[in-house]
């Protein structure tokens, strides 16, 4: 599903955000990406989501070389990926239902399909009854579940989560990880960046460890 081949990434100020990183993640796997703050976790996920481009090396997604993707193709590749963020990135002036519907609206689904799918996904993440609420009236755990609902509503084959439990207490974190495991069970590839090691150990999933841009285990 994901293949990194000797990938390096530097920014103008930081020349070695990622150094010579190679790994593969198979379809339907659930993998954690760990490392200290500044190790390059977010950078690695951004390369997959086509938010950043590599300085050297190649990234493959579903067999497609992301170096060779044109600007026009980017939106269509992103529709295959569900992105989840530490700060949720919700639109606070839209209802929960409208937030979740965004990927479907963008992909041109019709009104009926959107309604049906939003209802289904609300049920899956346990937010039934909250569809008319606004994000800021929800708790952190609920907001993150809205973020997750938005990420999976379009039935992506890959979920990328960047510190999804970073702002949540341990109990809520466990709930979120459980949700991810459910998605893995139905064949979705899940790739989670976190520095919450207890969650990783408890889950028993594979772990990739970054240290100052280098992959030290995986």
């Amino acid at each position, binding site marked *: 599903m994901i293949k990194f081949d000797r990938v390096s990434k530097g920014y103008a100020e930081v020349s070695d955000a990622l150094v010579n990183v190679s790994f593969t993640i198979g379809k339907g796997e659930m993998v954690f990406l760990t490392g200290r703050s500044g190790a390059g976790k977010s950078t690695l996920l*951004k390369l997959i*989501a086509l*938010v950043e481009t590599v300085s050297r090396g190649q990234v493959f997604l579903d067999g497609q070389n992301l170096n060779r993707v044109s*600007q*026009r193709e980017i*939106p*269509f590749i*992103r*529709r295959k990926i569900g*992105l989840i963020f530490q700060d949720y*990135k919700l*639109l606070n002036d839209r209802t929960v239902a409208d937030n979740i519907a*965004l*990927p479907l609206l*963008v*992909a*041109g689904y*019709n*009104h009926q399909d959107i309604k049906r799918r939003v209802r289904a996904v609300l049920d899956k993440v346990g937010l039934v009854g909250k569809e008319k609420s606004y994000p800021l009236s929800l708790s952190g755990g609920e907001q993150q579940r809205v973020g997750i609902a*938005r990420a999976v509503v*379009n039935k992506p084959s890959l979920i990328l989560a960047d510190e999804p439990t970073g702002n949540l207490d341990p109990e809520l974190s466990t709930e979120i990880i459980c949700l991810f495991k459910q998605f893995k069970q139905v064949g979705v590839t899940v790739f989670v960046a976190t520095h919450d090691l207890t969650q990783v150990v408890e889950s028993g999933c594979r772990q990739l460890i970054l240290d100052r841009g280098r992959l030290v285990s995986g």
Partner: protein
Amino acid sequence: MKGFFIVHLQALLFSLGQQLRTPFSSILTIAVLSISIALSGLFYLLVKNVTYLTGHLETSNQITLFLGQQVSEQDGRQLQRQLEKHRNIQATRLITKAEGLKEFEHYSGFGDALKALNSNPLPMVVQIFPRLSLTTQQQLQQLLDELKGLPGVSVAKLDMQWVQRLKAIIVLVERAVLVLASILGFAVIFITGNTIRLELQNRQEEVVIAKLVGATNGFIARPFLYSGFWYGFLAGILALLMITGLMKLLQSPLEQLTRLYLGYQDVVFLSVLNSVILLAVSSLLGVVGAWGVLVMQLNRLKPE
């Protein structure tokens, strides 16, 4: 196809909704735009009216034939009658030597000087009023050449210099108005563009999130393009109201003016077609302004 239509309709209504949500800044923008558009419209009307009026002025062209000193008054009258029947001549008027002298005395005040001469030095004159159907200079010139060759005619003059000058001025004014209208058109594009740029900035977060969930630039651009359309369209409507109001205000003094100078009253307003074109152009300019900004800015807006 139906889905496509509905998506566009939604975006169109949504963008109007956005404008209604920020009425103050929208109204300001629309006001500024409408003033630019109304000015263009008024300039256009100015040119149209002047052209229309001078179109009638051309009919006041006339040719003056100065007859030779040796031509008798009888031969003069004979020539006048003959010319009266000419197919390109509407009317003629004979000014005999005596009448010429009287007019000269009356208008110049040099009468005493002429009285000192023992003979009348003024030639007999036939004034020719060409048919209204002769409108181009070429046709008039042709008639002039023909009259020049007649026996007894020593000099033939076409009195249309002032019409020509006026026409040259009108051409100049037309050009100036065209340039002004273009500048105002660019102003509309830039003002709309800037407004859309601010809207884009205000909704940056939304744009970035939409991009992250797979929105194409086209999808993101759509509501902003419609927003540009609404600015142009609403400003066009307001401009039409302004033009109509102003013309109503000016109508009676303008009519009085034309009646005084031309003997009839007629003021040209914007036709329905003009109004439709004005609305279409102003809407288009709004869309173009929005589009220009979107092309420049959309690829630059990145997650982060």
